[in-house]
């Protein structure tokens, strides 16, 4: 399979743009596009996982400055996501390709359904472990200081292994899933969950990438143009996101997710 550098930059641009507009993340879109162009699914996953590290670092910078990101929560949860990421990537390398297509479709569908159900629970008091982990914080919102405390970290942490596993095996950020755990289980505010999830996916990406690099599937000359594209695309996407209605963004997200699910299912059936 031969891919032109210009084509790769363009794929990155489109994926980064739609990824940040829909909240799916660029990598969830890169893999289906590459697969559609005839790249083997494992190669597609291995290379798109590296782009996550760049997108995460780029988008985290402004969240950090605004103090939305909770670094302590991130550090604690990363302990679990990196283990999940390494295990997930190793599984992906070992299993037959058709399983990955189906898992990809299944995970996107599950995320779509679960995330609709999760209701943020911001009230509640800290338990002992969360107090030891000092998972609390404050940030400015609309001119007033908001304080928050976490809880249930004993459950939230291990749950992150699953998020890491899916992220590592599919070469995606699984950001929506991570945000759901932080909002629904640990009880962090939406903004803090989104920012912290954005921060964590880069770390999980690196952990998974170490496994894929070892297999010789990651080519800097494929990853480089993709990173360039996604970086520009995701910045443009996030600018436009502020200008369109939530309803439109949601529609883009659902339509895109359903399209990717269908494509992966078809590919999966063909690969059996």
């Amino acid at each position, binding site marked *: 399979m031969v891919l032109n550098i210009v084509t790769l930059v363009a794929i990155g641009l489109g994926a980064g743009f739609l990824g940040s507009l829909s909240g799916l993340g660029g990598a969830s879109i890169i893999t289906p596009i590459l697969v559609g162009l005839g790249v083997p699914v494992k190669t597609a996953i291995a290379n798109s996982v*590296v782009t996550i590290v*760049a997108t995460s670092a780029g988008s985290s910078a402004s969240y950090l400055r605004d103090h939305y990101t909770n670094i302590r929560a991130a550090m604690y949860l990363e302990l679990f996501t990196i283990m999940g990421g390494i295990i997930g990537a190793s599984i992906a390398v070992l299993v037959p390709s058709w399983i990955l297509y189906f898992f990809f479709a299944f995970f996107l569908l599950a995320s779509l359904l679960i995330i609709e159900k999760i209701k943020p629970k911001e009230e509640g008091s800290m338990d002992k472990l969360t107090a030891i982990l000092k998972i609390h914080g404050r940030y400015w919102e609309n001119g007033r200081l908001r304080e928050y405390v976490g809880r249930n970290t004993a459950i939230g942490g291990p749950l992150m292994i699953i998020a890491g596993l899916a992220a590592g095996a599919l070469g995606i950020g699984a950001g929506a899933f991570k945000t759901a755990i932080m909002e629904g289980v640990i009880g962090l505010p939406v903004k803090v969950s989104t920012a912290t999830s954005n921060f964590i996916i880069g770390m999980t990406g690196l952990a998974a990438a170490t496994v894929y690099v070892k297999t010789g599937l990651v080519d800097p000359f*494929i990853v480089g143009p993709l990173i*360039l594209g996604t970086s520009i695309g995701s910045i443009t996407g996030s600018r436009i996101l502020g200008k369109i209605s939530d309803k439109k963004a949601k529609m883009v997200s659902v339509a895109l997710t359903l399209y990717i699910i269908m494509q992966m299912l078809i590919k999966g059936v063909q690969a059996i």
Partner: protein
Amino acid sequence: MNVKYDLEKIISLLLISCVSAGLILIVAGLTLSGGKVANSEEYIPSSMSDWVAHGVSNGAPRALVSLGVTFILLTPFLRTALSLVWFILNKDRVYIVITGAVAIVLLLAIFGFISIF
């Protein structure tokens, strides 16, 4: 917290610098290569250090792109190392242990010691 420096700001700065530097290297390499095809069927080294070494022996474009990608890929590790130093300076025992553990797992993974192959 007895150290004045704001960890969020330091990490934010680190991330921006690393990604910018990586992107500049990638753009430079891709420009020098003249937009040639990226062929995934040729030999691809299986470690980050070999990418760079292979790149250096295969001309400037490949060396620059490999270096840029490696740089970006390592940013999460760099921010872990920086956080660890910050937690040590602040004598935050719990997070010295947590961050230290993350750093060790990452180091082992980066150098290829964690593997089932």
